[in-house]
């Protein structure tokens, strides 16, 4: 049960990363590898502030702002200095590695003895269950696990709602249109460059915020924790697309969150069945590869079938 609850919780926390990747990858078709650096950046900033006694909420919001700054850099590298999308992301990601080490002061920063959002989650869980543990469908559940799940679900719900509202404002719609048809939105008076910068800001802000929550949930920040996270986000976004199938902002946001949770559950089950944790990134990469080429193969098969 703990495993299942933790899979749900991590899936929800990482769905914020997926929402960020949704903005860069689905809205702008921009494979923004900055995410690998900014998720760690968020974790590092939050962890470092927490160990200095800053309030968990303030620390998490600061992590969001830090991510925005990272996205701003990538956006400016790409739009103002005309550096290729992927390369802009790689440069910022690489730079962030050193910055993260500086922020944390060491490669791993434990959060065991400080007050974090998980502390609040535990209080919430105790309040909900009335005890330190409860039973759910006959399984024992700790207050910490239950509280973390409820709290992360609430946070994700609020952020997804804000994102949905944003994408239906004049500004947010102009952002969606910038990714959909650059020429058109330019002719309607929108600077596509500014939209990309703003989009990457928000995207990496969300990714860093996910990093801050993840660090608080697992009780440490690690300089290596971001490796391959962009691929994770892509997998979630792709599953989300397959689940909902439409392009409307609401459906895509919901799909992305569902995709993230579902993907985490699949991974948890696979690990339970004996998947070597070392193979996790390999399996994720293969999965995304499959999801990217499958539509193309399907089309080939279909046109073959139509021809014969």
């Amino acid at each position, binding site marked *: 049960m703990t495993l299942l609850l933790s899979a749900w919780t991590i899936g929800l926390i990482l769905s914020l990363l997926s929402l960020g990747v949704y903005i860069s990858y689905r809205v702008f078709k921009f494979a923004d590898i900055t995410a690998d650096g900014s998720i760690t950046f968020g974790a590092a900033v939050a962890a470092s502030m927490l160990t200095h006694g800053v309030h968990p909420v303030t620390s998490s919001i600061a992590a969001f702002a830090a991510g925005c700054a990272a996205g701003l850099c990538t956006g400016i590298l790409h739009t103002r200095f005309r550096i290729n999308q992927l390369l802009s992301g790689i440069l910022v990601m690489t730079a962030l590695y050193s910055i993260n080490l500086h922020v944390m002061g060491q490669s791993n920063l434990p959060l065991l003895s400080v007050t974090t959002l998980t502390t609040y989650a535990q209080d919430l869980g105790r309040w909900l269950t009335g005890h330190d543990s409860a039973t759910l469908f006959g399984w024992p559940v700790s207050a910490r696990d239950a509280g973390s799940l409820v709290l992360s679900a609430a946070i994700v719900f609020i952020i997804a709602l804000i994102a949905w509202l944003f994408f239906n404002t*004049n*500004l947010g719609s102009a952002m969606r249109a910038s990714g959909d048809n650059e020429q058109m939105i330019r002719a309607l008076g929108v600077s596509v460059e500014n939209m990309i910068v703003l989009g990457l800001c928000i995207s990496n802000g969300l990714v860093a915020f996910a990093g801050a929550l993840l660090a608080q949930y697992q009780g440490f920040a690690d300089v290596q924790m971001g490796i391959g996270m962009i691929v994770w986000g892509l997998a979630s976004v792709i599953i989300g697309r397959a689940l909902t199938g439409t392009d409307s902002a609401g459906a895509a946001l919901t799909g992305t969150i569902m995709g993230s949770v579902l993907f985490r559950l699949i991974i948890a089950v696979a690990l339970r069945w004996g998947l070597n944790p070392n193979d996790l990134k390999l399996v994720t990469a293969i999965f995304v590869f499959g999801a990217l080429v499958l539509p193309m193969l399907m089309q080939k098969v279909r046109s073959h079938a139509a021809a014969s």
Partner: protein
Amino acid sequence: MLQLRELRKTFFAGTHNEVRALRGVSLQIDDGSFVIVIGTNGSGKSTLLNAVAGSFYVDQGAINIAGTDVTRWPEHRRAAMIGRVFQNPFSGTAPSMTVAENLALAARRGLRRGLGRLLPARIHTELRDRVATLNMQLENRMNNPIGTLSGGQRQALTLLMATWRRPDLLLLDEHTAALDPKSADQIVRLTEQIVSQHRLTTLMVTHSMQQAATLGDRIVMMNQGSVLADYRAAERRHIRAEDLVRRFDEIRRDELLDASAAEMLRAQYL
């Protein structure tokens, strides 16, 4: 309304692919005038439109719209004054967004875009009413992604979007060339109707001599990056499609003559 002074633009300057697309184009277009631009392939007519729209900066010369010098303005800033319809019917609309969303985006052309709702409840009636004027039954498909509509329907909507807020200048770049004849006719009629209704200053590029002869009140003929002929007033009224075709044949013959004469000279003297 629109003043172009000695516009020059060379692409790929200094390479083997150098193209002198505009070689000193000057035009003065009055308020409310509907100008048709014709010319052979590569004559620079589309380049001229793109120069005005700001798709690139000109090397030399000045562009003045409604009394404002916009020569160094980026494209998105000029968009506050300019409505545009492209040759490709897919270029003017955002395919995955709905008809209503596309129109609402166009309704804020050149205005600040903040955190107000794109589609507040009160805007829906206005959107439907104006789409209904197209007589294409599109008012019943306001919530469909615009990518599910046909090229003709999308081009009609693009025309509506470009003129939703009255532009100082309307630029039409062969906007019927990629459509089937029936849709093309429909768009031509719609163009006439919208331009005359709002008395829009319009610059329209076309390949069709028929359109050139029947639409607009002035014809500018371009060749090799410069203005070759400018028919207006009485001259414009008497011109027929055949006259334009004959003129084009003359140009072609002259160019052929130039080329063969040069060949002959080269053979004899080099």
